[in-house]
């Protein structure tokens, strides 16, 4: 390897290069955007954020009051709770899972990155890269900390109703610091100081300490300790940010740019493609023997290809199990959540799991010519593509329903209803994976609440709509606490209808 030189004089030059680039960019932007436009932008953003916060606050307060009064009602979809999970254990597990998601997401998106032009024009310069990557990294860390503190506030209000306002604020600040720790640990993984596996293990272990936050009383001391830990980690990582390899900086920047643009355009399929793009574990040899066996007819050949593609794209087994465990844990929490919240959790877990099953359809949707390769009706092609998601979701829902029956939520017939619901949900993944990107040329529609981008929201909901619809009879069965025959019949009709709609309707092209 070529030896590295002392970075000090280079660092000053690098800072000047960054400053020169930023100054030129600012001057150019100033020449194109008037003060009037800036005011309108700021006003629209301010108004939007204020309205959203008001709606969110009213929802959180209503939920908080509902939870505060739950002891008097005692309603739960599990009639007689013989297995109870202590509240602090559950909320600690939820906090841990959330922090792991933050760290994992930060790792996928960088967090130390450069954008496309920067990779070409900055990284090739023979100067220290720290001034190029440290300020954006610190901005991301600060935004994550502030954002997570805001997000944690309603969580604290709902899960710890006895806290005072000051204690809620302290708890939020502590969680914000935990978020900073999670992002900084992701940065350490980029620096590859411990190797990939040990780095991941160290992150998971370090975040365990942060997960006890909901289990201990909110205190300024705890906030100070978490803040100090965050600052120490940043002080260690910051000076080393220039040592992240160029290839890694470019990778993170590409994923972050792709994800950001997809989010901005509200294109959920593209967001999933962006976040899954860096996965290198496609096993080309998996199920090769099964694929090589002779088949009779094009439909069987296509089904076999779709089954093999599903297996090779690594269906998300661990996330599916985690969603199931999280769902069950939420239903078993001490005191119990309100019924509607419990049902909402089942829906969220189901939708999240279903969204991960559409990998094959999402990839093939990019190349519609593939569907025309075999002499088959398009409906048969879509039917083949939906087979594995339907089977996987049927199995997942059957297991979830079985666990619910085991815990006393309903009678064993719910397992069959759950499996049938899974078939409909699997078909929903095809509808979601093959939807077109939102058409931003469609004008918003005037409503009493102001202009609403109805066409774009419609695209956003496509797929999710039938996935939720497929669960409605099951939810009725859960709410009733037993499964009448009519629920089973309606569930079969719902699922069959959704499969037919998904398979027979041609996907809209942008």
């Amino acid at each position, binding site marked *: 390897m*070529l030896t590295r030189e002392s*970075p000090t004089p*280079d660092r000053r*030059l690098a800072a000047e290069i960054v400053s020169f680039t930023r100054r030129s960019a600012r001057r150019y932007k100033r020449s194109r955007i008037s003060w009037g436009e800036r005011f309108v932008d700021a006003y629209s953003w301010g108004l939007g954020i204020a309205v959203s916060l008001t709606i969110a606050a009213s929802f959180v307060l209503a939920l908080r009051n509902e939870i505060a009064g739950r002891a008097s009602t005692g309603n739960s979809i599990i009639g007689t709770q013989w297995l109870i999970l202590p509240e602090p254990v559950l909320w600690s597990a939820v906090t841990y899972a959330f922090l792991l998601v933050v760290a994992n997401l930060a790792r996928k998106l960088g967090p130390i990155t450069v954008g496309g032009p920067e990779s070409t024009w900055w990284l*090739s310069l*023979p100067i220290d890269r720290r001034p190029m990557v440290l300020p954006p990294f610190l901005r991301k860390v600060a935004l994550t900390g502030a954002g997570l503190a805001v997000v944690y506030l309603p969580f604290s209000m709902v899960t710890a109703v006895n806290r005072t306002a000051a204690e809620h604020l302290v708890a939020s600040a502590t969680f914000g610091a935990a978020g900073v720790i999670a992002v900084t640990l992701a940065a350490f993984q980029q620096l590859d100081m411990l190797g990939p596996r040990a780095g991941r293990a160290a992150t998971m272990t370090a975040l365990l300490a942060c997960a006890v936050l909901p289990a201990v009383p909110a205190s300024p001391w705890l906030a100070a300790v978490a803040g100090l830990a965050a600052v120490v980690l940043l002080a260690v990582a910051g000076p080393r940010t220039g040592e992240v390899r160029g290839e890694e900086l470019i990778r993170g920047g590409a994923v972050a740019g792709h994800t950001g643009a997809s989010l901005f355009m509200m294109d959920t399929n593209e967001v999933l493609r962006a976040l899954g793009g860096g996965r290198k574990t496609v096993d080309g040899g998996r199920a090769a023997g099964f694929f090589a066996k002779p088949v009779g007819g094009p439909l069987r050949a296509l089904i076999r290809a779709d089954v093999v593609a599903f297996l090779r794209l690594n269906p998300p087994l661990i996330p599916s199990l985690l969603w199931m465990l999280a769902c069950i844990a939420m239903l078993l929490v001490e005191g119990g959540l309100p019924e509607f919240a419990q049902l909402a959790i089942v829906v969220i877990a189901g939708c999240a799991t279903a969204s991960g099953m559409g990998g094959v359809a999402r990839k093939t949707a990019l190349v519609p010519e593939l569907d025309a390769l075999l002499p088959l009706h398009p409906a048969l092609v879509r039917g083949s593509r939906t087979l594995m998601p339907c089977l996987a979701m049927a199995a997942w829902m059957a297991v979830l329903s079985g666990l619910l029956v085991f815990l006393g939520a309903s009678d064993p017939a719910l397992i069959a209803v759950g499996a049938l619901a899974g078939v409909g949900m699997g078909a929903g993944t095809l509808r979601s994976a093959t939807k077109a990107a939102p058409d931003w040329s469609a004008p918003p529609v005037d409503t009493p609440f102001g202009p609403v981008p109805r066409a774009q929201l419609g695209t956003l909901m496509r797929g999710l709509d039938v996935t939720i619809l497929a669960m409605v009879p099951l939810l009725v069965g859960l709410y009733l606490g037993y499964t009448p025959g009519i629920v089973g019949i309606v569930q079969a009709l719902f699922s069959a209808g959704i499969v037919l709609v998904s398979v027979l309707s041609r996907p809209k092209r942008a």
Partner: protein
Amino acid sequence: MGTVLEAEGLLVGYAGAPVCGEVSATVGAGQILGIVGVNGAGKSTVARTIAGRQSSLAGEVKVHGLLIDPDAVPFRRQVSAVFDDDLFFPSLTVREHLLLVARGHSLADPEGRVEEELEFFGLQGRSHAIPDALSSGQRRRLLLAAGLIRPSSLLILDEPEQRLDPMMRVALGERIAEHARNGSAVLLVTHDPDLLLATASSCLVIDDEVRELEPEQGASIIAGS
């Protein structure tokens, strides 16, 4: 004449699969090695690997006797590479892009050097334009100007003739030859037989099997393909 670039048993490719045969080559200061081959033969992959843009599957590449490390400051100082990356700062002008490179390499008179390159590449009239406002060929000229404005002991050019008009191609050939005369080693991937004949001192034909030929033979292979 010192050796600048040494590649020994270099195997390049994607996801563990090689795209061409093993490459072994040596390029000294003042020499220009042309690399030719049909589309998909792996010429650009070889160039990208030598430039440190991607990892090799096997073998080793040394610049001035040291293994390549694209993150090491000396490597970045010595190696200049121009690929077909159409990536520009959307709000920096042509002149500002070149000024950035000139300042980043601590050139003595950055403004003066930028003016010289703008003149050579015929971009004076567009020096205050942002890259989005340039034609495809002008953006290519800007990339080449950025690669040539800075000093380097190894210059890697991937099909530099693409999108250039014939007059510019001729001028570029003379410029590359001058760069080599000033002591730099040049790796030139090209599909242009005239550019190859005007510049290269040796030639590598990339295929399943990699062969070293005279530039004339390489030019006739390009003409034949």
